[in-house]
């Protein structure tokens, strides 16, 4: 009972934020129907969300014919299998970038560098993957994935080191490192690692290092690894002395020093760990694609921030939030062709979720909930002033 209450206290704000975002989103969807037809279609949001759900899960609850809605729950097993596979496949990199931000929150760090770490991890995986393309798949895949993890970790190490030993705020340094990674990698692919043959600049094919498919069309190994990492991160954060140190540094750096911990070491370690998660996400993306195109770009690094905030920086929360965002991503094509709602509405809904999350105190007031403030400090980390230093 009390644990249920605790869970609710933690989940209330995210859940309400999601519902409010869907509500506001439905108004926008209704309004968007004006673009294509002369009159407002009040049923459009229902159709859109229904097709979104169907695209993400294969579940259907209603039939809409003409203006009439009939409640008719149904499921097509083969479609459901495909849809769910797509959902988890879309969720798995978000889980990793969510962890890349969430674990940072635990240590009081705001890692905005997910994007750069994803790119570096992906690029490292592509280079090593291209080199070992001819090796047996288990060797090639392992090496390419490890390269991605190490590349990301190294790219997370830099802002961690700068923060620990020079006091450079990680928000500033990671933003700059994002740009640096983007530009340098484009240059490298264009000038050095470009292969001849294709009509555009890209790295060599990763061959046998391509992401193994475990189930369905796109149920790849990354899904499994992401899930395992969620469990490992949970254990690390809540069940090991190191996790205790990370949480202590995040919650009260002075107390951490008093307790004999080394905030500097922890900052470097945590940022490297965060970078590793993001790097893995990049590796999975690139190894699924099979090569690194010069024009590669991805939003998963930034989506990680949404995921971590929505999941309240808790590994289980991050998993659930990533599945939600993954479902939106997987369901969006079906929403586009069934409801003819512009895909940008997905971005809008995700933006609204963040907005409502940030307006936490307003929602709390609206709820009149006695849910105590159990914010694990993640909002605090986001909004903390630049002057703070943990060392």
């Amino acid at each position, binding site marked *: 009972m009390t644990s249920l209450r605790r869970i609710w206290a933690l989940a209330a704000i995210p859940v309400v934020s999601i519902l409010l975002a869907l509500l506001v989103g439905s108004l926008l969807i209704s309004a968007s129907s004006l673009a294509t037809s002369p009159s407002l279609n009040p049923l459009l949001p229902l159709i859109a969300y229904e097709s979104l759900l169907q695209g993400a899960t294969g579940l259907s609850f209603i039939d809409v014919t003409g203006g009439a809605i009939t409640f008719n729950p149904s499921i097509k097993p083969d479609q459901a299998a495909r849809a769910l596979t797509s959902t988890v496949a879309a969720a798995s990199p978000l889980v990793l970038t969510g962890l890349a931000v969430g674990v940072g929150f635990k240590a009081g760090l705001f890692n905005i560098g997910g994007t750069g770490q994803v790119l570096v991890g992906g690029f490292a995986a592509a280079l090593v993957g291209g080199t070992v393309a001819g090796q047996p798949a288990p060797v090639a895949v392992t090496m390419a994935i490890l390269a991605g993890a190490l590349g990301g970790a190294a790219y997370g190490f830099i802002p961690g080191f700068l923060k620990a030993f020079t006091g450079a705020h990680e928000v500033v340094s990671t933003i700059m490192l994002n740009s640096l990674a983007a530009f340098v990698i484009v240059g490298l692919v264009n000038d050095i690692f470009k292969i001849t043959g294709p009509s555009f600049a890209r790295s060599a094919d990763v061959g046998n290092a391509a992401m193994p498919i475990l189930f369905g069309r796109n149920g790849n190994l990354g899904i499994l690894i992401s899930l395992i990492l969620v469990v490992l991160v949970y254990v690390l954060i809540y069940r090991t*002395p190191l996790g205790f140190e990370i949480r202590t540094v995040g919650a009260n750096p002075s107390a951490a020093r008093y307790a*004999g911990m080394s905030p500097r070491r922890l900052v470097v370690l945590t940022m490297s760990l965060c970078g590793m998660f993001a790097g893995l996400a990049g590796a999975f993306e690139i190894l699924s694609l099979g090569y690194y195109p010069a024009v590669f770009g991805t939003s998963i690094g930034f989506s990680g921030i949404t995921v971590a905030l929505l999941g309240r920086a808790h590994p289980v929360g991050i998993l659930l939030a990533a599945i939600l965002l993954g479902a939106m991503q997987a369901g969006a094509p079906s929403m586009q062709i069934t409801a003819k709602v512009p895909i940008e509405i997905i971005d809008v809904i995700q933006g609204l979720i963040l907005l409502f999350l940030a307006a936490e105190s307003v929602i709390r007031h609206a709820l009149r909930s006695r849910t105590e403030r159990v914010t694990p400090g993640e909002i605090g980390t986001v909004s903390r002033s630049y002057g703070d230093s943990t060392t």
Partner: protein
Amino acid sequence: MTESPSPPVTAPALEMRAITKRYPGVVANDAIDIDVRPGEIHALLGENGAGKSTLMNILYGLATPDSGEILLDGAEVRIGGPSDAIARGISMVHQHFMLVPVMSVADNILLGAETMANPIFLDRKEAHRRIVELGTRFGFQIDPDVPVGSLSVGWQQRVEILKALYRQARILVLDEPTAVLTPQETKEIFVVLRRLADEGHSIIFISHKLHEVLEIADRITVIRRGKVVGTRAPAETNEDDLAALMVGRNVQLVVDRGESHPAGATLVVSDLKVADDRGQESVNGVSFEVRAGEILGVAGVAGNGQEELVEALTGLRKPTGGTVSMGGRDVTGAGPRALQQQGMSFVPGDRHRFGLVLGFSLADNLVLTQYDEPPYVKGLLRDEKAIAAWAKRAIAEYDIRTPSANVNASTLSGGNQQKAIVAREFSRELTVLILDQPTRGLDVGSIEFIHRQVVAKRDEGAAILLVSAELDEVLELADRVAVMYRGEIVAVVDGPTAEREDVGLLMAAGRRAIPPVASDAVAEPGPTATGLS
């Protein structure tokens, strides 16, 4: 309610009748009656968690009582919230000030009570005039343009009081106003409060410092476990009586301690120099030793280098010179971890900053400095069972009042938070114990308990360094007293035989007697001995 003695009987400015407030599992206020007359300073005395704050929150509109009524000047009112309370002339000065440090005094006072010249612009001139006038009237001139952050704590508190007066408060609630003040500042604020009362303001003074309450209050109402257990006039009571009322049993205000039997020097400090955050040397070459089985007290007015000294000894700050050795080993510049491994325990002065992680459970806080040692770690993982078992034992042995070991440390009262730190630090294998303000802000029951534990540790053979701004505490516990003044130890006196006045003078002036006029000491702006009684 016990009938109180009689200053001229007038209608109470405020009356709270049969106030009852329940929270899940506790009755915070159980039919509390209290009345405050115009011009009266009414002290509200009680241990932490007795229900004082709940009662005041109800008065201030922050909580709604389950039953009972509030009367202002004899008329029943319903207080909807803080703004309503302020509109009715009730103001609260919180223990932690609600001031914006970068804003000027005037701006802080105006915040939320803006005096408008017209609908768009503030009337700063008029506001300045009123602030200066109010300050003059109550005996403290203040420059309205000074940023609040540059003021001392004592003056910040006066700004809070000015803020209340500016809002035309008639009933002023002060929540532990002296907890953050030096003895001298306390004296000064008492003058201000008396002046306010003489002008007809009613003051509710919340405290658990018995001698202060006896000094300032016209009447004292004691609350224990949500009930009023008595109302007294200062003349008809004394500290022991009040302490017994508060705690519900006779309390030993001064802990019995036998003679110390010190052995060899365990902690040896020689010529230690420490710089503060601005790089100024605030500890200028102090030397002393603490022997096993004795308590060395460090007395001194706050800000004379004690904080830096403690941080240097505990590894939180690197000394700029000198040496420290522990049990014969040089530990100069060692970090907290190394010192802990050598057998040092430390109860920090700022428990919220250093001693606890408020967002963590009590159990986690109880292992904050032992989290990676057996038995709390098994293999790579924490042993939650061992942690829980220890938490259970600590709660019982150290009398930590808490619903469970899993509640956040932030939900505990100050006394229980401190007990948790003491439980953690005292339970380690230790040879050196450093105590910084170990009882600051605690109630008598908790103080008594912690003092007992300190003496017990001494008798077990620990070398204890006790730093406290409470001279009484130092004199009660210390076997020897070192007096710190401007970063130096100006004298070390025998604890049991030390003269209070003598130590007070040392603290204030760095020497035993104030020299005749025209000496350089007079020109020094340092604190004076009056603040020490």
